[in-house]
């Protein structure tokens, strides 16, 4: 029987490490994926994921249950990633460009025309670079919405901002991307 997060949390607070292990197993891939998309480094994402769950274990008593546990974990992960980026002053660099270019995409359209496929791959690659270059507060909203599939409400709770702010940040992020891409949008649908 699969135990809910709430039941596991109760057990962990009573010192049950086996329950903590189940909880970690449940969320570690999601948090790693989010961290990886934020910092674009496997090694750093591993470290950050570890730090997130250590913080979760340490701060369990402070979790009041007014939001979902998953939202709370994402909040810790967001803060860790933003602190990491701020401290390391990570800016988009040529090394990141190669790393981004090497990453797989799930590009599926235009499969019949090699020229079209190449064009779309280049567009995707360029968009990835642009996303990586967005201000952190816009990029994190974009990643949480498009890649972590959180709702506006969940993103608001994760980032500790109103829903309207989430909507504004997503709008500004997309406006920036669209302007940077210029007229180069068509061909995906």
């Amino acid at each position, binding site marked *: 029987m699969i135990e809910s997060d709430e039941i596991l949390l109760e057990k962990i607070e009573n010192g049950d*490490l086996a329950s903590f292990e189940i909880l970690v*197993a449940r969320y570690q891939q999601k948090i790693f994926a989010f961290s990886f998309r934020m910092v674009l480094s496997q090694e750093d994402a591993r470290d950050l*994921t570890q730090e997130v*769950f*250590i913080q979760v*274990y340490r701060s369990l008593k402070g979790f009041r249950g007014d939001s979902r546990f998953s939202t709370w974990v994402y909040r810790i992960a967001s803060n860790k990633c933003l602190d990491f980026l701020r401290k390391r002053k990570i800016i988009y660099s040529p090394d990141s460009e190669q790393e981004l270019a090497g990453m797989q995409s799930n590009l599926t359209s235009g499969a019949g025309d090699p020229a079209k496929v190449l064009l779309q791959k280049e567009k995707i690659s360029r968009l990835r670079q642009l996303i990586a270059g967005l201000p952190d507060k816009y990029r994190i909203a974009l990643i949480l919405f*498009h890649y972590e599939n959180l709702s506006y409400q969940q993103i608001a709770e994760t980032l500790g901002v109103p829903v309207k702010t989430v909507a504004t940040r997503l709008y500004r992020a997309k406006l920036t991307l*669209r302007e940077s891409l210029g007229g180069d*949008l068509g061909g995906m*649908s």
Partner: protein
Amino acid sequence: MECHNYHKKIPGYISGSLPVDQIIDIEHHLEHCSHCRQEVGSFRELDLLIDAAVVEVPLVNLTETIVKTVKVRRHKKLSSVLRDVVAAAAAAIIIFWFSGPLLNTVTAPDYSEEVTSVSTTVGGVFKAYLNLSESAVNGLTQSVERLNLKIKSKEMK
């Protein structure tokens, strides 16, 4: 509502994140505004592109490492607490050991001089700390009083 105000809501409209009344309002506007319909089309294309630009993430299994780290840190914390408890118990035993003979006005044991000298040093340091704290508090009180006087004289002017 101006088109500009609708533009801001288009991403939310496309993703279905708006309240029902706002969706109805936007759809009503779109029936009459080709410019905003173009905007919707443009943002839809961008969304598809953003989705396609997802960075694939390798599968990891960090569970064991994470749990191991938590166990180690938990053990370290318990050891540290235990050390403090043992140290406090040892200090209590020593104090109890020497206080007995002294209170009974029996000749103190030979090594009591060293213990007394350590206690005097510790006591002296503690006393000096108290004196320093007292003078710091007095200094602060005087500063606050001077500040109050200044404020009062300004108010009277």
